[in-house]
């Protein structure tokens, strides 16, 4: 009986070494390049904070056509880094501070 189990050990070892995709791994590490397909669009990152839902909020600057001040760009990603939505803040608001400041459940950048 023991001999039978010993025979199975290599197979158990072989099956344990196989790769399997897990949600935990997908969440643990990822790389994303958020891309806008407009040739003349220009964005740059300023800060990023993790939100209560496990996702990420990114603060960026954007080039404005009518002023040398930097515009404001916000991007929300889910916990896997997938794009959820973006916001180009109105041009009347310019030059965000250098980091997202956590204030309770919200974030401030002025």
């Amino acid at each position, binding site marked *: 009986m023991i001999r*039978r189990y010993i*025979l*199975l050990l290599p*197979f*158990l070892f*072989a*099956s*344990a*070494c*196989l*790769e*399997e*995709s*897990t949600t935990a*791994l997908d969440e643990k*590490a*990822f*790389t*994303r*390049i*958020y*891309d*806008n*397909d*407009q*040739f*003349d669009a220009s964005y740059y990152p300023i800060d990023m904070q993790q939100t209560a839902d496990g996702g990420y909020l990114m603060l960026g600057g954007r080039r404005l056509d009518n002023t040398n001040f930097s515009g404001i760009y916000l*991007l929300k*990603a889910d916990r896997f*880094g*997938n*794009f959820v939505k*973006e916001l180009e803040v109105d041009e009347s608001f310019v030059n965000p501070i250098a980091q997202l400041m956590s204030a309770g459940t919200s974030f401030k950048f002025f």
Partner: protein
Amino acid sequence: MKRLYLLTFCLLICLPGYSQAKRKKPASFSTQGKQKDTFLEKQWWLGFKGGINFSGVVVDKSYAVIAPTNYTSSQTKKKYDNYSTVGSQATVEITFTFKGFSFSLQPTYRHSSFVYTTASAWYEDDVPMLELNYDQEQQIDYAEMPLLVKYDITNTKLRPYVQVGAYYAILLNANKAISVSGVDYASGGENKFTEPDIIVGAEYLFAKYNWGLMAGAGVNYHVGNIRVNLDLVYRKGMSLVNSTENRYSNDRLTGTGDVMDDIKMNNFSVSLGCLFPLRFLTSGFTSLDRP
């Protein structure tokens, strides 16, 4: 669940053999003639073969570095060009034949490759300004341990057979080569350009072990005491061939927007070789007389 399939398959292979071993009865004087016949019906073959193979992949789950914010992700999705590149393999075959059935262990060195392409484009007022194309080739070397059961369809000089089995593969080496080309419309006109290839060692981007099922057919042609063998095998990958943990670990590759999907690799191989009988090598014996 996938591991359970492998384990069940292994159990099916090993347990019948174990039970058969217990049923052996001691030989009696009256059955010695029959035993001699049985002895002559068995044959061991040792052979070498080599050939070419073509690989294709099946995507289990798609991954991407590029996350579009104002267009659909399908535009940057990978396009696999399956079975378009040629690999090679070399095999040592050890086969035991009994009454038309053969049990064959075939340690193999296999070099396989597969390719995919991705493309990106940027526009101004719906007019393309810049296009970038990435051609990605993966070259992978495996040490394989296939176990096959064959059945000879006829008992003639030209002896076709069918076969099924499974393999376990160990990764030996892997490389990735990325060719970058594009078209620049922004500088006026249509300026095509190519960037130097990016070639990286990618062993850690692939799974160290994988397994799969095999099925195929072939033909043995008896020339004297040896068999000339033509062998066709289709391998169906049953586990992932990519590393799930190291997916994003190469900054050079992720910087170009490249990341491996969860993929299983299928493979079709053609081999030519010869087999030598290991028993009855006397001047009067011809292997054609026996299985």
